[in-house]
Structures are given as structure tokens and as C-alpha cells.
């Protein structure tokens, strides 16, 4: 013979408890509701922000420097340019002895009378 389970009718017995639980539900406080809505606003703002990926921008001047081989090369190039300009402005008095008499080129002078140039240099050294 099967043993009969105790006759408990849970729905009937528990209904009063469930009703009490529902009746005693406390309303959420205002701060909680405001927090939830603040989260909604925050999420909307986060979505609205354009997602900018940083793009590397190199100034034209930097590109020019790089194309010339970097700062070292540019410094050397500048120094040489300045020396060239200075050399161009300063009168080469010491080259006065190369009086070519009009039409003769330097090459021709050396070809024709290389010794005379050498003796002139010696003269210059002697004169101090």
C-alpha cells in the first residue's frame, strides 16, 4: 500500500504570504530612479560621440627636413651654403697676383708659366 503524502495544499496556504510580500514591496527611492536615467543619458552621449581615430599628421617642414636626410644633413648643408656666401662676398685680394691680363684663363696661366706662379708665392711668403 502506498504511503499517502501529507495533504498540504501550498497554493491555499501560501497565498496569504505571497499577497503580503506583494503588499510590502517598497517603492524604489528617487535616487535609484535618477541613477538609472543618468545611465541612459550617459549611454546616449557615449553613442553620440564620434569615434575619432587619431591620424598622424606630419608638418610640411618636418617632411622637408626628412627628405634632405635629417637635421644633421641640413645643418651641414646650411653651413656649407653660408661659407659659400661668405666666400662670394669677401674679395679674394690674395688672388690679385693672378692678373690674367684680360683674356687668359687660370688654366692657361698654369699651363704656360707654372713656375712664375710658384715664384710669386715664394715672394708672398717672403713679404710675410
Amino acid at each position, binding site marked *: 500500500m502506498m504511503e499517502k503524502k501529507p495533504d*498540504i495544499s*501550498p*497554493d491555499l*496556504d*501560501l497565498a*496569504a*504570504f*505571497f499577497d*503580503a*510580500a*506583494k*503588499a*510590502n*514591496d*517598497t*517603492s*524604489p527611492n528617487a535616487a*535609484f*530612479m535618477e*541613477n*538609472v*536615467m543618468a*545611465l*541612459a*543619458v550617459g*549611454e*546616449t552621449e557615449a*553613442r*553620440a560621440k564620434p569615434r575619432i581615430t587619431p591620424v598622424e599628421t606630419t608638418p610640411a617642414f618636418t617632411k622637408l627636413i626628412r627628405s634632405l636626410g635629417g637635421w644633421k644633413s641640413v645643418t651641414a648643408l646650411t653651413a656649407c651654403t653660408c661659407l659659400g656666401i661668405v666666400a662670394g662676398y669677401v674679395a679674394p685680394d690674395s688672388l690679385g697676383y693672378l692678373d690674367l691680363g684680360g683674356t687668359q684663363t687660370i688654366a692657361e696661366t698654369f699651363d704656360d708659366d707654372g713656375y712664375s706662379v710658384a715664384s710669386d708665392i715664394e715672394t708672398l711668403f717672403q713679404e710675410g
Partner: protein
Amino acid sequence: MMAYDAMNDVDDDALMVLYANGDQEAARALTYRHAPRVLALSRRLLRDIAEAEDVSQEAMLRLWKIAPNWRQGEAKVSTWLYRVASNLCMDRLRKKRGTNLDDIPEPADDKPSVEATMLSKDRATALEQAMEQLPIRQKLAVTLRHIDELSNPQIATIMDISVEAVESLTARGKRTLASLLLGQKEKLGLE
């Protein structure tokens, strides 16, 4: 932008679309419609108001995040929220029950309080205490069925189980509750 009052008749799916398009009144309507129930469920399961608020805010935040991708007609917002909140609560309960039982603070309702002198309050308190004795899934199923008054298919969706499993969980849960509360019937005015 529609006024909040004007949104009372707007269904949840439409509110989700409106919110996804930046309408904060839609968010307000969704909050007032669902947040209190999510909070109530979390509070019943966790029996800790601060933790319940944490969980409810997390569930609502997940709703806001999913709004742009919300698929209308696929799931009800309420069911989706209950599911998220239930999972978050169950995770927390498992951690508490599984590891540091001694660290769980005693629920305030265990102590006699002035407010608890009302009969209805006493019954609610007694039920909460009895619910603590139930396994987590039984507790969730009974809460959703008999306090939140959801249908078995809804609960099945929330808990990701079959309707038969829901029926089994609620039946076993109620049987345990009845046996636990039987001795208090007289004290709680249920003779």
C-alpha cells in the same frame, strides 16, 4: 521629443527605438515601467537593498546599451530584463552560498523590528526567511511565478529551461515553503 505622459500608451519596442534615437523621455518611460519591478525582484532574491540596486542598475545599463540593436518582436523588454537581473542575482548568490557563508550579513528582517509588528509585514518577513532556505533556482521560480505573477512560459524563457522544469521547480519550492511556514500559521493569523 514626446512628453513622458504621452508615452504611457507607447509599447516597449517603440520606446526602445525612440531611446536608441536619443529620446530621453523614452528612457524615462522605460525606467518607470520596468526598473521598480527589476529592483523588487533583485531585492527579494538578494535581500540586500544596496546589492539589489547595483544589480538593477547594471541590468538597466545593459538595456540602454542594447537599445540600438534591439530586435523588435523577438523578446519582451520585461522578460529580457528579468532574465538579465536573475542571472546577475544568481551569480551573486552562488558566490555567497558557495564560498563565504559566514561573511553574508544577517538580513535585517531576521531581527524583530517595529515595522514588522503589522501582520502583513510579519507574513512577508516569514516568507522571505523561508525563501532563504530554498535552492536558488527554486527561489527564483517561485518568486517570478507567485510574486511577480509571470506565466510559466515567461519564466521558462527567463530561466532558459522548459515549462515542465518551471512547474517542477515551483511545485517543489512551494512544498518546502509550506512545510517551513506551517508551524507559524497560528502566530501569523492564518488559522
